């Protein structure tokens, strides 16, 4: 029998896919777009994500553990299925490869300023490829290990209790915000990743714990984001925060331990596993979809082609600002998928069931 995913692993997997490179810029984005005390708006974004997870849970309830591809293929004609799958494969692959590129570029800014980034991207993709071909069960096991490798760094925030000033937070809420809609969409992409659990339906063992685990993953992400952003808003002055490119790295750079300082380089390297998990899961999702598109092809080859394709595409944007622009638009598309796909599935299932189990 094939091994199934335990809810605990699902929860950690969701967290690891959600929390990625964005957390490095998130405090600045909140300050820039949401204004004074922008960190509070995280609760709103989290609520939106929770609602989206609720939609997914409705799909899960109605689907009886069937994979979403089965549901779609049963009801929709090939003419619709084919382009839909193509869109899913391309958006998920691209988001995976461009997010990886962003991480690699950041890494080179701080750690190896003159090493060609594509060398490192190559090594990175090899790890991602080996993970994806091992299947979702092993990916989730790896995610659990990576989780424990990364999560303890949240305790480093305690270091800032001393420099934290409530008076820096100011009593103003959301003043001096700009581009709230566009910025809000960009901030929301920080929560993306949970939508991939749509593809996990056939792989989970317990019906009950599965969705709670997804909620838990999202809650954990929210909690960590809140902790980081609140610390930044209290530790830096507002106008300063709006000008800081990578607030989280600045925060880490401030830590001085008795025996070592400038530890941020170590942590950037450590966050590789977090970035790796997001990329792995997106490309895994893309390859699952591609598999349904071409059922006869070998999974290994599909993954290989996708990873190579992703590698090739990531040559194109070569400076950080270009990568950010690409990610912005891909993020919009991924958000669209995160909401659109469950809605589509609910509609299909509702029609099929004649609305019997919807309530």
């Amino acid at each position: 029998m094939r091994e199934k995913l335990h809810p605990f692993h699902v929860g950690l997997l969701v967290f690891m896919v959600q929390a990625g490179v964005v957390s490095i810029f998130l405090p600045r984005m909140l300050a820039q777009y949401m204004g004074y005390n922008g960190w509070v708006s995280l609760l709103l974004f989290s609520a939106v994500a929770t609602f989206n997870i609720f939609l997914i849970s409705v799909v899960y309830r109605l689907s009886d553990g069937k994979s979403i591809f089965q549901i779609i293929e049963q009801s929709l004609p090939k003419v619709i299925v084919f382009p839909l799958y193509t869109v899913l494969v391309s958006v998920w692959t691209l988001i995976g490869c461009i997010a990886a590129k962003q991480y690699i570029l950041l890494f080179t800014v701080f750690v190896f300023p003159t090493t060609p980034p594509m060398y490192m991207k190559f090594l990175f993709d090899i790890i991602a490829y080996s993970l994806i071909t091992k299947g979702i069960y092993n990916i989730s096991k790896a995610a659990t290990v990576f989780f424990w490798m990364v999560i303890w760094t949240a305790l480093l925030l305690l270091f800032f209790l001393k420099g934290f000033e409530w008076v820096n937070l100011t009593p103003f809420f959301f003043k001096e915000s700009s581009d709230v809609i566009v910025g809000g969409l960009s901030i929301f992409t920080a929560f993306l990743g949970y939508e991939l659990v749509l593809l996990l339906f056939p792989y989970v063992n317990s019906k009950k714990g599965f969705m709670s685990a997804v909620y838990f993953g999202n809650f954990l992400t929210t909690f960590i984001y809140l902790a980081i952003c609140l610390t930044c808003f209290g530790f830096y002055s507002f106008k300063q925060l709006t000008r800081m490119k990578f607030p989280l790295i600045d925060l880490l750079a401030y830590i001085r331990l008795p025996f070592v300082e400038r530890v941020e380089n170590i942590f950037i390297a450590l966050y590789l596993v977090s970035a790796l998990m997001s990329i792995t899961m997106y490309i895994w999702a893309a390859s699952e979809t591609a598999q349904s598109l071409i059922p006869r092809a070998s999974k290994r080859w599909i993954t290989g082609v996708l990873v190579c394709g992703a590698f090739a595409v990531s040559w194109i944007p070569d400076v950080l600002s270009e990568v950010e622009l690409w990610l912005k638009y891909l993020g919009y598309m991924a958000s669209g998928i995160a909401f659109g796909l469950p809605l589509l599935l609910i509609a299909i299932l509702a029609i099929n069931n004649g609305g019997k189990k919807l309530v």
Partner: protein
Amino acid sequence: MYKVLRLFLTVLLFGIVTGCGDQRILEKLGLIQTTSYDIAPGSDEDESKQKLLISVTIPRPDSGTGTGSGGVNREFLTAIAQTSKGGRVNLSRQTELQLVSGQLRNTLFGLSLAKQGIWEHIDTLVRDPSISPKVKITVVNGNAHDLLAKNYPFHPRTGQYIDRMLEKESHSQVVPSTTLYQFTKDYFDDGIDPIAPMIKEAGDNVKIDGVALFQKDRYIMKIEPKQALIFAMMRTDIKQGDLNVDLSGQNRNNEHVTLSSLVSHRSVHVTPHNGNFRVDINIKVSGSVLEYIGVLDLENDKDRSTIEKLVSEYVQANANEMIAVMQKNRVDSLGLGKNIRSTLHYAQWHKMNWPDTYQRIEVKFHVNVRIKDYGMFTK
């Protein structure tokens, strides 16, 4: 087929990871420890045409003889340039080492440059990912280049000497520990102005010369070293310090008290007052008296409370004197703007011109000194 491919990839991988594109060999690096910035001598009066005199000091244990500044085991480079990074290229031409700023500890700004504003130089520093946000910012009362160029025979090499001295003094609160992080934070905050420690050359030594107060990024005035601790109490909580009090100002000639192991706590209360603001700053101080010269008896409870009262008055008088000058010069180094901002709505705060309002606000200090103990020997 797979095996061949795997072997090929493994070999390729090894080839790449051992490629060593970014080498940093310690012996070939010039780890800049201290940088100084001044206006280049003979520069134009026009600020935009002025050039910068940049100097760096690099520890070189392998050069020179002996230890300490007398043994000159450091490299000292100077260049004149339009911008600070431009100066760096110029400096690099004078040494066989690759100059890196990852170990930069301190930046010194000459007084004349500080008076013109130092933000554009600090901006270059905060932009550079290799520079720590904990790099110190120090103002030199005089010429920073001359102070850094000099070797002080009885001390460690100059850069290290200044760095360690500031570290120690900021620990006992005599001077603030102003870092890139702190300066940038205060510079961008509309409710506070930055401050920095000030040093000057004094013969064979370098001396702490008080606290430099800025308005945005321009040096405006300084706090004298003997008032620096009281200034620190006005600004923040103190965990350790020594206060020397000359009570002649309180009509008690030839009486001196020294409070040691001083701990202080400050709280600020803002009340709107006739369309203006009244700020009450309560300072609670406690410490041990290890030295008292005068007519009162430390063992006598009543006399001790008299001393407490006298010291409180002394602190209060100094605080009043300092805040008056700061208000006159429109420098909000205590960050009272932050406290007032916390009581207002966004529109009210932004309608108000803070530097103007700051000159008018009423600031009252309430100092309460407690003598914890008075040593282990009685008269």
